């Protein structure tokens, strides 16, 4: 008699090992004229960290957040303000950034996670925008002008290549953590909550407390990404522009593209969106328009609407369904 077995360590780590290989090899290929891809890869990795957390929250547990740009911002600005206004040194400042995001995510989560469906989405939307507004108005954050000359986190030097390695090594660690979580009773609890909250409750799962845990985890991941954004990606200047409602919605789009309940989909979503942005930018450069950023926004909006129209549970499963239908 063959019993079902928990997934073996070898099978579990097969994916991450392939990812590790890709992380080591691919950036080395981006040389010469392709070296501009390196900062792009950095940003993609940073986004991937946020999207991983958001996938756990939305895809697995079924709780929608339209405000995750807020936690991203708190990480970046928490660390940034700590260092520029309070002259805290690098590592403590990073810790403060992550802690700020985590703590506020906890407070917000405990307050709003009793809401369901679109009420929850609206509450997260408002919180995300409130965080953005407060950041742009406060003095110590530099308001709309932002902060300059933040400390740089060094990793075997300062080159774009080493930054890619640093960021993606962290992405790998987060992937492994997420894989551990989803292939465990905790992961089942998340999916059970998504499936039927009352049934889950009757089976002994403390639904509210699990929701808060995964919400805070996703908040901490977003803040971590924010800290990396501030101290690794763009330490010379940190402004409020990336932390708008649009970014929150883009994050959700990345989750949707990746197929919602899929850890690897999170990476795919981040990659697809980074790629799309770059393609739009390149096309713009080719056309030589001065208003390229506005066209970029327009096209992003279009793509966002199209993806949502064609979604339902993600573009990739959607495409899979189309191909299955064609075959039969």
């Amino acid at each position, binding site marked *: 008699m063959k019993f*079902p*077995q928990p997934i073996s360590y070898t099978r579990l780590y097969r994916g991450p090992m392939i990812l590790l290989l890709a992380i080591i090899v691919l950036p080395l290929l981006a040389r010469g004229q392709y070296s501009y891809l390196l900062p792009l890869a950095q940003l993609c990795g940073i986004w991937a960290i946020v999207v991983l957390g958001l996938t756990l929250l939305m895809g697995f547990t079924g709780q929608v957040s339209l405000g995750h740009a807020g936690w991203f911002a708190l990480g970046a600005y928490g660390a940034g303000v700590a260092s520029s206004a309070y002259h805290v040194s690098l590592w403590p400042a990073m810790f403060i950034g992550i802690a700020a995001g985590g703590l506020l995510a906890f407070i917000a989560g405990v307050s709003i996670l009793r809401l369901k469906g679109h009420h929850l989405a609206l509450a997260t939307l408002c919180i995300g925008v409130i965080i953005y507004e407060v950041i742009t108005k406060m003095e110590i954050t530099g308001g709309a002008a932002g902060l300059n000359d933040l400390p740089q986190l060094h990793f075997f030097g300062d080159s774009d290549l080493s930054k890619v390695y640093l960021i993606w090594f962290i992405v790998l660690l987060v992937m492994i*953590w997420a894989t*551990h*979580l989803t292939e465990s009773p905790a992961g089942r*609890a998340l999916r*059970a909550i998504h499936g*039927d909250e009352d049934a889950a409750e009757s089976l002994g799962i403390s639904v509210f407390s699990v929701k808060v*845990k995964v919400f805070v985890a996703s908040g901490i991941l977003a803040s971590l990404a924010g800290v990396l954004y501030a101290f690794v990606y763009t330490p010379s200047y940190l402004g409020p522009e990336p932390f708008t409602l649009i970014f929150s919605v883009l994050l959700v789009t990345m989750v949707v593209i990746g197929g919602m309940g899929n850890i690897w989909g999170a990476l795919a979503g981040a990659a697809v969106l980074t790629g799309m942005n770059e393609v739009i930018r390149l096309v713009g450069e080719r056309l030589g328009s001065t208003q390229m950023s506005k066209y970029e926004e327009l096209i992003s909006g279009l793509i966002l609407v199209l993806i949502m129209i064609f979604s339902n549970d993600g573009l990739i499963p959607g495409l899979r369904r189309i191909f299955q239908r064609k075959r039969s």
Partner: protein
Amino acid sequence: MTDFLIVENAGKHFGGLRAVDDVSFSLEEGSLSAVIGPNGAGKTTMFNLIAGVFPLTSGHVRFLRKTIRNPNGACRMGIARTFQNVRLFKDMTVLDNVLVGMGDTGFLKASVRLPKFVDAERLRMKRAYYVLEEVGLEKFANTRAADIPFGHQRLLEIARSLALKPRILLLDEPAAGLNRTETTSLAGLIRKIRGQGITILLVEHDMHLVMNLVDRVIVLDQGKKIAEGTPAEVRANPRVCEAYLGTPTC
């Protein structure tokens, strides 16, 4: 009088509606009983009160002398329940559905994933497989719950509850939607579970199943208890016939 499950003057009002009105009964450990009554009698509400889904408006429900506060608490006390309209985790596998109730859902342990943890997982999966064997669903272990036939889905709900190793099992209309063969094997399963020492309380509409299966019957009508006794006693009770058929004889 027993200390096992005591329902004492239980009342539940929803606004003006008295879904359950001054109902009292008790269950002995190891017994197999049913709550019956016409539609709207308050049977499922009574169940929900025992399962801790909402608080009582009046009276008490106590299990082993303790008040039941919420579904989590009920589960911890050893009360397991199924739902009237099957509420499975549709996108999870049959095996995973059973595993949900088996605990150890901490984030920390899962994050580190030590070999000891994986061993515990292995044992859980083994036990879950045994539970599936008990209800006859082991072949479907890796099938998505939404993809198995309806009769099997009902069995899966029961398996899910059994995985909790409960002391008392509340079955809410377990035979609804099942054909004759399935109902017969359901009766066999219920007897087997009872044989393991688990106390069972059913809500059912299928009179044939109820009358041939249970020790005691409690009859509700419009929220009130109108009769209680063995199946034979209840069948001969004119008030019961009145409630169901409108005439004093059945």
